[in-house]
């Protein structure tokens, strides 16, 4: 049996303490394999984003463990943790988080800049990523001047520019109209299919969830079912 690229082992997460303590995750276990597309589905406040942050090593679980390619992520600290975040993950958030005043290209190459890649190589790869999303003619525009769909495509370009193994997308179409949302979905699934990038999508949109290989349903901090299409 292959080793999962990401796994959660009885993960719990609570916020606050004492009487004000809130258990956002109450013991979640799951496995995600390389090249899969997985949807994490659930109602608002069910703990989807919390789980995604733990899987993306942006936060530490209160209990249980996260495994990256079979080894406990707790062992990753400091520079190793930062390098792992930089090389392994790409992010598409529900909001764009583009720096409005900077050019589209500047925004897209941010992960490469953080990785310490030289400016010429950055530019080449940035333009390549923009070309893949049909945005190359907008490279030197200010990011604030893009339309919503163009912004989300720029964000995807930024997520894939460093050739990540996993792309996390939190409500990637939440901000877009149906038609534009469909285009963005197509791009994400094409990346998954053509480049073998593992795709983890957080959503409460059943249609988007249905396009994924597998669905993980979450309710009140617990996994209620995987795979089948039970409404959340």
């Amino acid at each position, binding site marked *: 049996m292959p080793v999962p690229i990401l796994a959660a082992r009885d993960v719990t997460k609570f916020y606050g303490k004492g009487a004000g303590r809130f258990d956002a995750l109450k013991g979640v276990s799951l496995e995600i394999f390389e090249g899969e597309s997985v949807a994490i589905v659930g109602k608002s406040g069910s703990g989807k984003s919390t789980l995604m942050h733990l899987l993306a090593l942006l936060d530490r679980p209160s209990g249980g463990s996260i495994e990256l390619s079979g080894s406990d992520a707790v062992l990753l600290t400091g520079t190793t*943790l930062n390098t792992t975040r930089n090389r392994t993950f790409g992010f598409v958030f529900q909001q764009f988080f583009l720096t409005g005043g900077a050019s589209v290209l500047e925004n897209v190459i941010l992960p490469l800049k953080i990785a310490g890649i030289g400016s010429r190589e950055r530019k080449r790869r940035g333009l390549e990523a923009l070309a893949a999303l049909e945005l190359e003619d907008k490279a030197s525009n200010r990011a604030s001047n893009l339309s919503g769909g163009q912004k989300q495509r720029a964000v995807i370009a930024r997520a894939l520019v460093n050739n990540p193994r996993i792309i996390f997308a939190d409500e990637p179409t939440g901000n877009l109209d149906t038609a534009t949302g469909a285009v963005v979905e197509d791009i994400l699934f094409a990346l998954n299919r053509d480049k073998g990038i593992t795709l983890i999508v957080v959503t409460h949109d059943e249609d988007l969830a249905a396009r994924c290989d597998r669905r993980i349903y979450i309710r009140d901090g617990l996994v209620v079912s995987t795979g089948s299409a039970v409404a959340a």
Partner: protein
Amino acid sequence: MRTIDVIGTAIDNSFRSKLRTTLTVIAIFIGAFTLTITNGLGTGINNYINNTVAAIGAQDVLTVTKVATDATTTGPKKYNPDLVAASGGGRPGTTVQALTPSDITTITNLTGVKSVQPTLSISPGYIQNGSGTKYTVTAIGAVPGITLQLASGSQLSSTSSQSQVVLAKSYVRALGLSSNSAAIGATVKIGVTDAARNSSTIDATVVGISEASLGAIADAATTNSALTQKLFDAQTVGLTGAAKDRFSQASVRFAGSASEAEVTKLKERLTKAGYSGQTVADQIGTFKTVIDVIVLVLNAFAVIALLAASFGIVNTLLMSVQERTREIGLMKAMGMSGSKVFGLFSFEAVFIGFLGSAIGAAVAILVGSGVSAALSGSVFSDLPGLTLIAFSPASIALIIIIVMAIAFVAGTLPAAKAARQDPIESLRYE
């Protein structure tokens, strides 16, 4: 992230909110401008003092006076027939104990002393050209080896038997001489009154015309050894022995190659023997100390302005950390280390400090040079060679570095705040 990218991004960021950066830069500008000007003032005045040292005295000479035995008591002092008015240097009314020929012998016999020349105090009554108007004049016997600041002519000769005098510029016209150069070689009469109120005149040749400077007393004539002796003899006609040979001070020459330690030792020997010796550097030192203290006080004001400006930096950066919370969160989520985030913001502070201080120093140099050129042409035209505000590259560089250091310290608080930010907290959707 590469260091060069951290620097580039920090500079880009500082230009992102132009108004805020500009206001902070102006605050720093004011402090750096003031600091540069006050420092320039100190440099200018001290340079001038150094350049005119030669006019105050020769480098290998100690001015020796006898320490009054009751110098430290306050209130009325016992009458001492050996006290004479101090010549030059002291406050009016200051008296020192006179040096007698036996003192001169004692000093001559000290190790390290090459020669001793008692300073003859001369007080001529007037100076006159031919039968023209008589003008009062103060005269000073030149210490051998002194270099006067001359407008024209040549230095006095201490070995020549000719009676030579160097006159202050202001006497040229008064004595009916057409110009500085025309005055050279002219013979003037110096009137002297002796103890019995009998007048006599001594002829002297003008060899040079002096510029006014810190060292030379205004309206002064400087006489060479031969002339000094003649004037002294003429004014002490009728006095004998102890009454005549009383000197307020003496010039002690030592080897020109003497090290500082050797000079100090010589001074110690003089002190032990009951005398006090001062080099030109000692006399200048007092001057410089006063100026340094004034400059220090002015600098303190400038530093206070800079401290106020540094709070501006703290404020500016706190606002920009606040504004860029999400951006910081995103960069951290993408694997940027806390220390690089710290570097990003603290370099932005340093850059703002650099902008303010470099512009401040540059404008201060322009304004200071302009002002001091204007003043040299008007108020200070009597003090040629005085550049009131002068700038040395080293102190300008030091000011810029100090301001950048202050900016860095001011930036650490916001930068640390940014570095500590939790990516999740920063990215929480509104």
